[in-house]
């Protein structure tokens, strides 16, 4: 059976909305971070799929996906460093309790 482009897109859409849902509802900062990764990866899938099906022979989509993976790795490292620092300072990584920035 041929795998159509729409199948991939359905998967990536589900991943994106799962990420958004997680981003909004999860209470733990690490879980929020994982949700962000989920959204990023869904976008990567879209890049690769569009390149493969719509512009066969071109390479931009693949490389953009690789680039995004690199950036998201760096971003994760920074985010985890921030989370560790937050934990050291207030002994808590519950999102609800991190409202000091409003002042």
């Amino acid at each position, binding site marked *: 059976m041929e795998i159509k482009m729409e199948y991939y897109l359905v998967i990536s859409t589900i991943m994106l909305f799962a990420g958004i849902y997680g981003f909004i509802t999860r209470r733990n900062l690490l879980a929020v971070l994982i949700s962000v990764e989920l959204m990023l990866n869904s976008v990567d899938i879209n890049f690769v799929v569009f390149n493969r099906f719509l512009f066969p022979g071109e390479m931009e989509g693949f490389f953009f996906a690789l680039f995004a993976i690199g950036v998201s790795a760096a971003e994760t490292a920074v985010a985890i460093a921030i989370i560790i620092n937050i934990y050291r300072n207030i002994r808590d990584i519950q*999102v609800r309790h991190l*409202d000091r920035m*409003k002042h």
Partner: protein
Amino acid sequence: MEYTLLILLLPLATFLFLGLVGMKLSERTAGIVGTLSLGLAAVLSYVAAWQFFSAPRVEGIHPPVVAWNFEWLRFTDQLHIDLGILLDPISVMMLVVITTVSLMVHLYSFGYMKGERGFQRYYAFLSLFSFSMLGLVVATNIFQTYIFWELVGVSSYLLIGFYYTKPEAVAASKKAFIVTRFADLGFLIGILLLSYFAGTFSFETLTSGNASVFAGAAGRTFLGCSVMSWATALIFMGCAGKSAMFPLHIWLPDAMEGPTPVSALIHAATMVVAGVYLVARLFPLYYFETPEVLVFIAVVGAVTSLYAAVVACVQTDIKRVLAFSTISQIGFMMVALGVSGMEGHDGLGYMASMFHLFTHAMFKALLFLGAGAIIHAVHSNEMSRMGGLRKKMPVTHITFLIACLAISGIPPFSGFFSKDEILAAAFAFSPWMGWTMSVIAGITAFYMFRLYYNIFWAVPAEQEHEPHEAPGSMTVPLVILAAITCVAGFIPFGHFVSATGAVLPIHIDWRVAGLSVLIACLAIALATCFYRKGTNSLPDRLEATFPRLHRAAYRRFYIDEAYLFVTRRIIFGGICSGLAWFDRHVIDGAMNGLAWLTGRASMAIRGLQSGQVQQYAYVFLLGTLVLTVWLILM
């Protein structure tokens, strides 16, 4: 004659030097530095005068010399402000007067200001004043005059307020500055009008007597007077402010709060005649373009002179008497300019005015310095605290008497010659003017001798300390000035200064001279009878007979009160308080209302910033959804 630049630069350098490092010097050094530099400037002025007047005449006149000129600010090709040194008969004469009197005052201040706090500062300010005044008289253009005009105003302000811990001195300095500044507003507008139509600031063009210079102003009128009349009248307003003409004279009597040598230098001999000098400088302009303003000047001068003479008769503070006498004498000079013509013997008034300026500077400085010596001895300005000083202060007494005789117009002292020329010019103008000025000359003699007798004769007042003669540094200037007063009248002044520059021989008109001497002698006799013994009750009885007149004259005819009424009640109380209310309630209210509204709006929506990141994300998502739906439906 480039060295004349040094006459200006020496006092300026001294001011900077004493102003910057004066406090590190001893009083003596500071005084010597100031006096020496001024002495050098005086010597240079005499050399310049000698060189200028000994140069051969060209077509019967001493040609004006521009010793130095420098373009300072250029607006257009024709209109530029220069700074320069113009030497012509009147400016050279003024250089001599200013440096001489200033040198005398420098010397005198050694004794008078000894031990005062701020002695160095005092000498620094004296140098600043000398610099400004010298710059004013040698100006090549009217804008340079204006610059130095303001500078003398500042130095006068600084020196009147020298005793800055005394509230009266502070108030007097402010009053002098504000009143003269107000007059200078008119002066500036006049300069702008004049230069707008003439296209130049230069005196050479403005006073050339060439009507085509002002062709642009022909036919233009404002409120029924021609624009040229407005311009020259407004310039005269500046002169009236500086020279204390009625009704802008109110600052001068109060300016006596300053140290007495300052009064002698600034408020008797030099700065207050700046107005007369400027009218003389612009005389051809007044004469050829706006003769009606010249008549106005004569009338203002006569009114001022009469007013001040009457007020001087009842003042009890000796410096105030001298201040009003100064105002009155400057009125004489203005009258002389106002009635003057140009050519030949018609130009007598111009010459007489400058001659009187010269002699008056000397004897009035002498009077003030003498008054300073008296105040130094009895520690009071009030006549009632003096009396019988002639034996205790012989030098002061003799020199003061010489000055009194000079100002009263008794021959052979200098005042007789100059005042006689003024009276002759006034009679030639109209008999009314001549008789008025003769009567004022009589009143002058009366109040001067009232002053003289009350100080040196009359009943001696009780003194805490026995009065003694002033130290040598104070009496030497008195003697020098008295000597000048004795001989200055014999200077053939018409050979040096006249309206056209040509020689104007002085003939004493014995009808006028005899009349004025007769009036002066009568007035002196009256004063002798009233005040010599100090026991004659006639003055008191007269005072009791006309209490309101006496009171009004003593309060200077309520001119100060009128000013206070206009400024405080009408301008501050009426107009300004309304404006202040508008500012406070409408303008500030609008601004405060805006701030209040912003504050309230912020309070209302502050709950939106909860700090909950996930809530923000939720709102963001909703927004995105709404946008997406909207885009799809479009």
